[in-house]
């Protein structure tokens, strides 16, 4: 099914993506329009939804299971929206190729565009959330503007690269096997508990931490906790580790996607 001996003259991927940037832009706008048209609260819904979960978690872990941490709410919101972004992009990736099946069969465009558009439309929502989180942290938690916030664009960039890297193989496999859609909620729920979303990394026993960091989301969340909650500068090791993880994940993920993308277009 893959282009065995077949040939098609194509520009290198970055050039192709640049050529289709207009389509990417339109897809992102379309996503947001479809989601928020005819809703009175519009984008506010993306905030209300996770805020409700945050409220529940804060109540539980401040009053019931007491996690000893100053301003637990501040700790939680520093990482929660990052987790939420990852979770939403992963879910979206399992349906995106099939949703655009008829489109893919009637015009050519690099299917990578679909993955990127899904992550970027979620990024727009995330940016809105993170701005509010920053304001809340500066006003009620730090009572100052920590210089570490300057790192935020970089680590949000890493977050997107990591998410895209995970979306690539997931999207490809989801076209071939419908099981992915059924299995993903279980994986996401487990991932939520084995990632430092509602508890700090320090609560994991020191001996277990090297294994714990095998989960690619851990380093990223730790980075956000350091920069947003602690208002400090992360160690070079942590920053380098997360960068390497994100880039390698993205390269490997895209490698898998590239191998199946042609059959995906035909099957989806």
């Amino acid at each position, binding site marked *: *099914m*893959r*282009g*065995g*001996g*077949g*040939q*098609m*003259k*194509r520009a290198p991927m970055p050039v192709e993506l640049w050529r289709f940037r*207009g*389509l990417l*832009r*339109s*897809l992102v*706008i*379309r996503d947001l*329009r*479809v989601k928020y*048209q005819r809703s009175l609260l519009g984008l506010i819904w993306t905030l209300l939804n996770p805020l409700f979960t945050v409220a529940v978690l804060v109540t539980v872990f401040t009053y019931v299971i007491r996690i000893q941490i100053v301003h637990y709410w501040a700790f939680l919101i520093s990482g929660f929206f990052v987790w939420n972004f990852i979770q939403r992009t992963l879910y979206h990736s399992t349906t995106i190729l099939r949703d*655009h099946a*008829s*489109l*893919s*069969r*009637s*015009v*050519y*465009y690099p299917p990578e565009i679909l993955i990127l558009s899904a992550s970027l439309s979620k990024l727009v929502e995330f940016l809105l959330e993170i701005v509010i989180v920053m304001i809340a942290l500066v006003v009620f938690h730090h009572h100052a503007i920590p210089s570490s916030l300057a790192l935020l664009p970089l680590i949000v960039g890493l977050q997107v690269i990591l998410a895209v890297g995970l979306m690539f193989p997931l999207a490809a496999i989801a076209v*071939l*096997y*419908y*099981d992915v859609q059924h*299995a993903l909620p279980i994986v996401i729920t487990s991932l939520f508990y084995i990632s430092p979303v509602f508890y700090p990394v320090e609560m994991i026993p020191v001996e277990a931490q090297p294994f714990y960091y095998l989960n690619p989301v851990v380093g990223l969340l730790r980075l956000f906790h350091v920069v947003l909650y602690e208002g400090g500068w992360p160690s070079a090791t942590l920053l380098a580790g997360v960068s390497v993880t994100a880039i390698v994940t993205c390269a490997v993920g895209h490698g898998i996607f590239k191998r199946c993308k*042609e059959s995906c*277009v*035909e099957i989806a």
Partner: protein
Amino acid sequence: MKNFYLYSHRTTSLREWFIRTALRRPITVRRAEFSLRGFNLRVGRGEAVALIGPNGGGKSTALRLIAGIYTPTSGTVETSGRIAAVIELGAGFNTDLTGAENLDLYGAIMGLSRSQLSQRYREIVEFAGIGEFIDMPVKYYSSGMVARLAFSVAVNVEPDILLLDEVLAVGDQSFQEKCLDRLRAYRSRGCTMVVVSHNADIVRELCSRAVWLDGGETRMEGEVGKVLDAYRAGTR
């Protein structure tokens, strides 16, 4: 050549995968379900070629190969210039959005930049002739209106190569006339066209050459009148 495979396990599930792996049975036993074989077509600049033949003959597959949507199993496809393919009318339309909002995405799909789209916006809307429906959600459109809107984007893209798959069958008489006029004008300006159609009149009118595809094989290729006559005689 383009092969499509029929996989022996059409119900793809992990359970099956585990069982097959455990029993060491091959997972993908496949045989070619449909193939377009020995398809060889050279279309010169400004030429218009028709692909005719029965359903399932390979016409749309050929068109998709030219458009770059499918990658050939073997062989090569070479094109130069901007391609606009209208294979499924209104593919990519979101029915909850208005016609105008959909134009934004559809224009991008067809390869129009934002400035080009806003330049040609009036012309596209006028050509579609759907009046104030342009600001209504597409779900309230009739199927003819969807087709008109999609088609009027396609003909306003001004591509170098235009690929049309049975899209002229839509719309009423007057809209069809308008489309044909536009396509004739294109031809005279040197636009290359490959047209799939079951309408012999349209084929005769637009194209100089025709290829008759049947069961994935080229039955005949040549001057449009001859191929059409042979096809008609062959199917009778």
